[in-house]
């Protein structure tokens, strides 16, 4: 939890696969200018979950365990991803390797269907999700806003869904707000985490105001001129958006209504006498 936030912005706690998660900001660990900036950004964000990956180890560098040590010292929950996997088979093997290395059965499941958009292959995603849930994983599927895919993933045993806002790394914000709103409406009791495509704190706030449960960010923070400050900005925006959702937003109207009382308006009716 970010202790810098005023009490009124402290959100109701979030439960993912039975685990209580204090922060609604999930942060990626990639693309930062230095390990120090990454760890400072995680702290500034108040994140309680960070994402990581597995990659081919170099016999010369042997850098993997040093990075793991760095992340372990953050004392946050670690969620490995299957980034870059293009088939269910690759994703399944990668998830298993990540579970052994990181000692967690949580996995951000990515099965990528297209190199340009990094769009999830929903068919492969479902196949991999089914297999991994059968092997005891707690699967967080990186999906689109597609309602039927969401339904099938829920049926397969995914207790959390992670729809994209826009393609990974684009920073375009909520590309399809109508579909995201529908998804939220159709799955009122499923934790929904917006994953990918968020560029600005206002995008994250908008997602939270819609009632999404959390936001997963990486590029928007890591590629900011000052990633640590941007992490704080996102934390504030996400807390504000959540508080606004919990407070209940007013209904939008097509016509103007005065906010100042009409009764007793000075000079009222004088022009008719």
């Amino acid at each position, binding site marked *: 939890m970010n202790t810098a936030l005023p009490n009124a912005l402290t959100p109701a706690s979030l439960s993912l696969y039975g685990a209580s998660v204090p922060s609604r900001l999930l942060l990626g660990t990639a693309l930062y200018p230095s390990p120090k900036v990454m760890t400072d950004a995680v702290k500034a964000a108040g994140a309680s979950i960070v994402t990581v990956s*597995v990659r*081919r*180890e170099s016999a010369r560098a*042997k850098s993997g365990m040093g990075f793991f040590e760095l*992340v372990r010292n953050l004392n946050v929950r670690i969620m490995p991803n299957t980034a870059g996997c293009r088939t269910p088979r690759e994703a399944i*093997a990668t998830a298993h390797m990540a579970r*052994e290395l990181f000692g967690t059965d949580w996995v951000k499941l990515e099965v990528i269907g297209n190199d340009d958009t990094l769009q999830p292959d929903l068919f492969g995603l479902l196949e991999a999700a089914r297999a991994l849930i059968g092997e005891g994983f707690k699967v967080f599927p990186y999906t689109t806003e597609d309602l039927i895919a969401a339904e099938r993933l829920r049926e397969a045993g995914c207790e959390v869904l992670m729809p994209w806002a826009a393609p990974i790394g684009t920073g375009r914000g909520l590309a399809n707000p109508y579909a995201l709103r529908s998804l939220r409406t159709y799955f009122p009791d499923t934790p929904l985490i917006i994953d990918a495509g968020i560029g600005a704190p206002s995008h994250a706030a908008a997602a939270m105001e819609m009632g999404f449960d959390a936001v997963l960010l990486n590029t928007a923070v890591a590629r900011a001129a000052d990633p640590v400050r941007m992490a704080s900005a996102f934390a504030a925006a996400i807390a504000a958006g959540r508080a606004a959702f919990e407070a209940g937003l007013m209904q939008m109207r097509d016509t103007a209504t005065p906010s100042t009382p009409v009764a007793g308006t000075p000079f009222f009716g004088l022009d008719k006498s």
Partner: protein
Amino acid sequence: MQLKVFVNGEATVTTATTLAELVAEFGFAEAGVATALNGDFVPRGARQRTPLAGDDKVEMVSPRQGG
């Protein structure tokens, strides 16, 4: 006896006969990498009893930054 295998996409010649020996030959700590053989995960505890064959494709991965 020597075998040609592919480790992380690169051809290499080894005298290792099991996956465990190959991991050691690369200088990796047993718990420092996770492994896959020909696309399937091989748990740490199974490497010793996993024999290698010519042209096997081995992955050895470790923790890395991710989004």
